[in-house]
């Protein structure tokens, strides 16, 4: 899409088609001849892996719909019908359920890679924003998908999340009622979630096309953060990137298969094998693992509205990131100080994930009582999550804006090929 096309139609038919619909040219320019920086490491294979995840979710999802019944009466039984009676239904449903988790594993790695190597900086802001939109759509899709089996966690998860909107002043209550289509989560809610769960993945696919388009306009970033300058810096996408992506996908599939076949329910929650019952809440409501950090931020704030705002703020930070980071150096490879803050960011995110799974007032260190602060013991998960959440926001709102102005960076190589070539010289 960028630069000059080198596609040469070989046969008469290709010439005929190319003059009418240059689709082969598009494919050739995007996935064969497309110049990729030669120094991309394995963290760059997750884009391909994510396409695989999306394709897998779409295919298995469309199949599941052939057997699923979207009604409060029949949903739970129809999922079990898939598990027990439909030919290979168990395989397809476990692929879909675990596929969601795999999708999020891959997307988190993909996002952290972008964060570390500064892939959001000019001229890639729109590319990054489109990625954030995909992530947001993924979260909405995953949440609504989790409601569909109509188990206890499905139901009460839906209750909790839809009630978040109740925190909004004035309109909150009307919005929740509107979302539910009634006075509680019930059949109408299930039906609309089903409809949207089917729709959103196709919207994701659409935004993915825009994402790839934007990528092909600005070109890929690379571990040095230096734009390719000459032919020596790049290699054609096929075979170099294709074969590397293929290998990485295959390894990723091993992890996927391991979950599907040997621990298919490890990432889910046992309570979801109990049919939804509006009269009894499970003793411990937790979202799926990929929402835990945000859930912890929500609970860290001792006010309903502020908690909801903080949670959405955490996502908003991602959107604002291209304008928050002031550093002229793109890759953290040459930003030793930023690297340290990045590692702490990783740790804080993981801590938030753990906190999200725990009960807020449980002690972090067992059997230790310190002193009460704001009504909770300092040795509690709610306090741990407050500290971690504070760091999460500080990283985006203070560290990245300020550090870029004051930090001392390492010398950045002139071109991609130069450090690679010098490393080569070392070897040989």
């Amino acid at each position: 899409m960028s630069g000059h096309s080198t596609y040469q139609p070989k046969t008469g038919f290709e010439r005929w088609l190319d003059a009418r619909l240059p689709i082969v040219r598009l494919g050739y320019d995007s996935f064969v001849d497309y110049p990729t920086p030669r120094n991309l490491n394995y963290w760059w294979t997750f884009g391909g892996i994510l396409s695989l995840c999306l394709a897998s979710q779409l295919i298995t999802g469309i199949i599941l719909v052939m057997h699923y019944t979207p009604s409060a009466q029949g949903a739970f039984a129809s999922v079990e019908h898939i598990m027990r009676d439909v030919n290979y239904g168990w395989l397809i449903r476990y692929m879909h359920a675990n596929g969601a988790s795999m999708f999020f594993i891959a997307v988190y790695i993909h996002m952290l890679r972008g964060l570390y190597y500064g892939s959001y900086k000019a001229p890639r802001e729109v590319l990054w924003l489109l990625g954030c939109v995909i992530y947001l759509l993924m979260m909405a899709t995953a949440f609504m998908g989790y409601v569909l089996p109509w188990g206890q966690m499905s139901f009460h998860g839906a209750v909790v999340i839809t009630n978040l909107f109740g925190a909004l002043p004035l309109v909150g209550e009307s919005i929740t009622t509107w979302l539910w289509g009634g006075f509680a989560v019930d059949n109408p809610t299930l039906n609309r979630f089903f409809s949207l769960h089917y729709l959103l993945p196709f919207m994701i696919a659409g935004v993915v096309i825009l994402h790839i388009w934007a990528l092909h306009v600005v070109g890929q970033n690379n571990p040095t953060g230096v734009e390719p300058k000459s032919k020596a810096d790049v290699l054609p996408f096929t075979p170099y990137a294709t074969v590397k992506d293929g290998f990485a996908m295959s390894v990723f599939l091993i992890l996927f298969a391991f979950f599907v076949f040997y621990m298919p329910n490890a990432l889910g929650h046992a309570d979801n094998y109990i049919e939804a019952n509006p009269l009894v809440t499970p003793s411990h409501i937790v979202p799926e693992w990929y929402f835990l950090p945000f859930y912890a931020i929500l609970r860290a704030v001792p006010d309903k509205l502020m908690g909801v705002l903080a949670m959405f703020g955490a996502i908003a930070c991602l959107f604002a990131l291209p304008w928050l980071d002031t550093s002229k150096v793109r890759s953290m490879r040459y930003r030793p100080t930023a690297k340290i803050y990045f590692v702490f960011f990783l740790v804080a995110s993981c801590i938030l994930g753990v906190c999200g799974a725990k009960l807020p007032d449980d002690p972090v260190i067992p059997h230790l009582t310190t002193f009460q602060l704001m009504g909770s013991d300092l040795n509690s998960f709610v306090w741990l999550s407050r500290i971690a959440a504070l760091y999460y926001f500080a990283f985006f709102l203070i560290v990245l804006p300020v550090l870029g102005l004051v930090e001392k960076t390492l010398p950045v190589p002139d071109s991609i090929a130069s450090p690679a070539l010098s490393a080569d010289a070392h070897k040989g």
Partner: protein
Amino acid sequence: MADTAVGATTEPEHGSDPSRRDFIHIAAIAAAAGGAATLVWPFIDQMNPSADTRALASTEFDLTKVAEGQQVTIKWRGKPLFVRNRTKAEIAKAVADDHAALKDPETDAQRVKPGKAQWLIVGGNCTHLGCVPTFGGGEYGGWFCPCHGSVYDTSGRIRKGPAPKNLVVPEYAFLTDTKVKIG
């Protein structure tokens, strides 16, 4: 991919054998294609009847419910099935036509169980395009299909109209004199 891969790495160096390299690419592509092809099967097979549907594929029916000259329509595998207690006259008419010019030649005896000529059990869908024929229509004393005018005789054989085959006789067996298991 194999072609481009080899094309891109132009000169063979280090004395490595180009055909061996080719083989690796071909093997990798073949393995990937084989895996994808295998995965397709579950995706196709899931549309075949599921275990609970298959479990309902056979049914038992009590014949005492059908008086002579009457017919009962039951639902079997989601489709109608005619269980007809034929009169002597109907049987005689059917047997008499055994050697008439039939589109789908079959004797009446071939369409019933030995010694149970009064019981005719046939699928209730016209063999033309699947409509349900009504009994008592047409000039052969059997069924008439309202959709496109196929006419069947008292043995359920096609006699006139666009249908190519006789009404289908399902697989069934007499469990007792008055009870049949269909399917």
